[in-house]
């Protein structure tokens, strides 16, 4: 099965904004949040992202821009071989990587 390709914004105001591409093995039902957690576990633990409920679509913390649209990362399934761009929300002050200031 071909991996998922995630193109993710890294950095903060100090370092500037860069896209980094990651390849994550596909598994049935994997969400974009699962894929990001896989990256943190296996590739780079310093990738910052907000999440709490993980898949109940309850906490609303994992909101981000997915291919230019506001989405919840936990609620989007990745497709085999898919290439997807993930950025922090534009309307909120940026903290780091995918995290922004939220209430």
């Amino acid at each position, binding site marked *: 099965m071909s991996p998922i390709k995630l193109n993710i914004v890294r950095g*903060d105001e*100090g370092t500037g904004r860069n896209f980094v591409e990651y390849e994550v093995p596909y598994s*049935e*039902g*994997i*969400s974009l949040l*699962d894929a990001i*957690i896989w990256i*943190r*576990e*296996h590739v*780079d*633990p*310093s990738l*910052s*992202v*907000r*999440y*709490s*409920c*993980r*898949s*109940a*679509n*309850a*906490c*609303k*913390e994992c909101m981000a821009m997915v291919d230019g649209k506001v989405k919840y990362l*936990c*609620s989007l*399934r990745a497709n085999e071989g898919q290439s997807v761009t993930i950025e922090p929300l534009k309307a909120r002050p940026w*903290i*780091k*990587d995918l*995290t922004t*200031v*939220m*209430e």
Partner: protein
Amino acid sequence: MDKEQYCTDVLVIGSGAAGMMAARAAADEGASVIIVDKSLIGRGGATIIAQMTVAVALGEAEDDNPDIHFNDTMEGSRGLADPEIVRTVVDRGPEVINELEGYGVRFARSENGKRSQVVSPGHTKKRCVYVDILNTGGATSNGLRKAIWKNERIDRIKNVMITRLVKYEGNVVGAVGFSMEDMIPVSITASQIILATGGLTEIYERNSASANMTGDGFLLAAEAGSELNDMEMVQFFPIAHLFPPLVGIDPIMWDPFRYKLGGRLLNGMQEEFMDSYAGEEAGKYTATRDMTSFAIFKEVEAGRGTPHGGAYLDFRMVPEEKLREGFGPVIDILLSQGVDLTKDLVEVAPMAHFMLGGVSVDKNMKTSVEGLLACGELIHGMHGANRLSGNAITEALVTGRVAGETAARTKKEIYPDIVASELDAEWQKLQQFWYPREVSKDEESTLALRKKLQQVMWRGAGPLRTKEDLDNALDEIKKLQEESKGIALARQEKYSLSVVEKIENYNMAIIGEAIIKGALERKESRGAHVRLDYPELLQDVYGLGFNLNDSGEWTLTKRDMTTTEGS
């Protein structure tokens, strides 16, 4: 060095239903309040995911009163609940539901305008109120967020993890920790501190709650000198959702539907198996939670599990119109994710669901340490060895309100200088803990280590326990305490998840040890605690007290409860 230092009458740590209710109650009593959470305020924890019901004796669907609710809860607890705590919670249940409605939470009402109440297992009356559609916890969180947001006495501090409570002359006088967003030290001086940090389900490989439920508050309380009770009592839910991955549902949502529609459990060969363990008849639903967990485990062990290590839940024999009637809108949530219950099976398995044991408190939610209170899932006393469905949010709301009131009415001197110097000391300790060596990348993944820990707890101290497995788990968890302490992390200037996870991992390993030790000590099977090598329920009822001694070791003491049973 940048740092943030705050001062308040009442500090609330944790912001689920219990924490937000405590903050509001203390503010209502005139106190200044700070509510702090390592996640966002009112977004993490268990409440927001809870889709089911709240048990309160309103008596609107049929005759009911708090005395009957009390008896049902005591009966369900297998002799281990504290009657004073249960009494406090059931008596004020109706009041807090009315309060929530004042914050805009719309409980479902029937055509006569009265609140809809349904029966849940263990309750002898139609007692459980709910918010449509599967939105009880979400609506409760939402209402309470509004209730604290617009209160000028309450300040909110998000993304700050409290790592230690500060004590002076035997009293708790403040809390210290750090801000994740800026990675700077933070202290809060307070007259009274309320712990409302929730449960510890994340300690287990399979669990049904938010990722941040790592049991931090149990350790904060124990390190401050407060006693924990019955830590071996973790409730597992036998048929939580396992596969396929679904979004927007509570993993435990299958249970009431199975109850209502008679879903069948099948093993990996698609054969029924419950009859050979519990004599359960196809389509009926009579086996207790522990028996169902046992049967699923045994099938998996015998190589007859489903592909992901559970059992199948089957509704195919239920006519489509019945399914639609029973599941309501949920059937469309499932269909939109490719699950058609008229054709498809889903996989279910036992999962860690709720912490029954916890911090010992009196009926005013005071711990044994002056200045420290606790409430919500963190406390011990409401559920004993088994929690009834619907009693968790009732407990959170009432004990939160009681803790807030007690704290606001108890004033003592504050010691900002002591707290300030403790903040500097704690920050030095944290630097040592996180960065024992300078490294450019975390030496080991904190998430990988967490998985190891969760597997040890699941295999050794999960739903079915034996001395051999518990002994092995104890050895493993001791090693993981050292391993989690030893990992050097790379410095990150903002929003480092690794530093939080390292602390959480260490906390989980220490608290996990308490669970294992308690499970070894309790040589019987009672409610949620099932020892395959001690299947009998003992005549003598006893509770287990857990204290951390000066060298950081757990000491256990037995407390005879035979005399208080049923009183």
